[in-house]
């Protein structure tokens, strides 16, 4: 079977044969960037379609079913519509910040994709602080949201942005702490090492109750970080019409929409990497035949399958639950999730020191 590492090393060798080392590096950068961009856009298109279908089926309707087979081309049509629309800026906005904000948000969410390991050997940047980098970078996005809300010169936008700021700053903590639990167990921040440490079983299975708890906390906190319902206070369409992107139209709005799905992708990737073994197959200790069958399924299917599972969870929440109020939201974080996460981390540290995990 062809390994992704073979492909990457083949590209590297071919390019080195043709170009000088500096140019090779540049060419590889461009290639990797384009590849990730294309990959992510394909993912987002699938996610948007999936979201609409999931929402439709849960709400007793079909969802899009007119453009293409089962409405599969609806998203493409919508992207074209957004591209063709005028990106309109009202008179009273701060033009520079208003136009900059969507791109800042987009850039930040792309940065968070850098240390992700897509498949064996297919990783852009295997840094030793990978997980830390992702959680650090993904919280910069809130600056873009605040910029959008402030520069729009609209009261709804401002309230939405302020809510979003309060929310992301708070939930960043418990998301970080729940990842830290796994980091404490495997002893490395590198994405590659975390995946390798799960070769004999995913952390969610071999980490006892504390890691399961961390997983639950992480899913809750990351839903909040993505501004998805039931934590979609920044948009809260029944209160603030559309929150921080009320004034955006055309592709400006399109980019915010895109970013929401990229953020979901990042969150799902981190969750599947840290808790569900990344691209590693599902193994049961002792059942060699079963494990062999599992090994036969390609690694990218495993990875994408886990991503889609997490994404489905997040969508399922969105189309079932009512929204929280802002004070309840902050109370949930500061009074429940954060203290429990800290206690959990202490327990995890204790287990790790005693060597009780598998």
């Amino acid at each position, binding site marked *: 079977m062809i390994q992704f590492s073979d492909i990457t090393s083949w590209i590297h060798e071919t390019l080195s044969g043709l170009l000088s080392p500096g140019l090779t590096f540049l060419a590889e950068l461009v290639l990797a960037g384009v590849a990730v961009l294309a990959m992510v856009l394909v993912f987002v298109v699938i996610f948007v379609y999936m979201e609409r279908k*999931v929402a439709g*089926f*849960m*709400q*007793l*309707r*079909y969802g899009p079913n007119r453009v293409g087979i089962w409405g599969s081309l609806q998203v493409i049509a919508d992207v074209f519509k957004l591209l063709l629309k005028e990106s309109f800026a009202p008179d009273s906005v701060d033009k520079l910040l208003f136009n900059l904000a969507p791109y800042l948000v987009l850039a930040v969410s792309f940065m968070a994709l850098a240390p992700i390991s897509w498949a064996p050997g297919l990783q852009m940047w295997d840094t030793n602080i990978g997980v830390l980098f992702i959680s650090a970078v993904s919280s910069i996005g809130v600056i873009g949201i605040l910029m959008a809300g402030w520069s729009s010169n609209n009261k709804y936008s401002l309230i939405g942005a302020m809510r979003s700021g309060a929310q992301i700053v708070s939930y960043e903590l418990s998301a970080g702490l729940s990842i830290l639990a796994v980091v404490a167990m495997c002893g490395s921040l590198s994405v590659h090492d975390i995946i390798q440490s799960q070769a004999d079983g995913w952390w969610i299975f071999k980490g006892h109750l504390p890691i399961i708890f961390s997983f639950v906390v992480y899913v809750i906190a990351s839903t909040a970080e993505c501004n998805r319902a039931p934590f979609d206070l920044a948009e809260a369409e029944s209160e603030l019409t559309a929150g921080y992107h009320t004034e955006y139209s055309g592709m400006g709005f399109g980019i915010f929409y895109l970013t929401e799905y990229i953020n979901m992708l990042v969150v799902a990737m981190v969750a599947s990497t840290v808790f569900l073994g990344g691209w590693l197959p599902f193994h049961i200790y002792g059942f060699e035949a079963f494990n062999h069958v599992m090994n036969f399924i390609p690694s990218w299917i495993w990875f994408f399958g886990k991503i889609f599972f997490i994404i489905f969870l997040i969508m*399922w*929440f969105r*189309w*079932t*639950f009512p929204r929280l109020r802002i004070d309840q939201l902050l109370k949930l974080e500061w009074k429940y999730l954060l203290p429990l996460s800290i206690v959990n981390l202490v327990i995890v540290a204790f287990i790790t020191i005693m060597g009780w995990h598998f």
Partner: protein
Amino acid sequence: MKTVLRYLQEVALAFRSLWSGLRLTLYFFTHPRKEIITEQYPENRTTSINIPERFAGEVVLTHDENNEHKCTACTLCEMACPNGTIKIISAQVETEDGKKKKVLDKWVYNLGMCTFCAQCIDACPQNAITMKNSFELSVYNRSDLIKTLNKPGSKLKEKS
């Protein structure tokens, strides 16, 4: 200890309440054939669409097979209409025995103004008009909404 227990019980109850909701939406998600209720309108217009007999679509002046209607041009429907949808234009004709008589010339019906309240049908002493259950009433031109309901050449049905 008791408070901790009660606290944990509360948390468990909270999760259970959330889970029961999730289970319902999951049920909807996994049983699309049974649960989806969307009407696929343009496709089902000849098959499964259900328009009740009494559905108030538009007013029609019933004509029988001899192209005769029952309207005597008494204008009660015109008076009963709350928003001036109906205009009865009558003509004076001379009958064979020399008497002047009012007959219907044009029964003008402005569909664009009609609210389908059926008061005209209620007011008609001859039962000349009824509601038809047609529902695809849109036209491209607003003037097409103003209809003349009596068919050309039709005449009053003689009382037998």
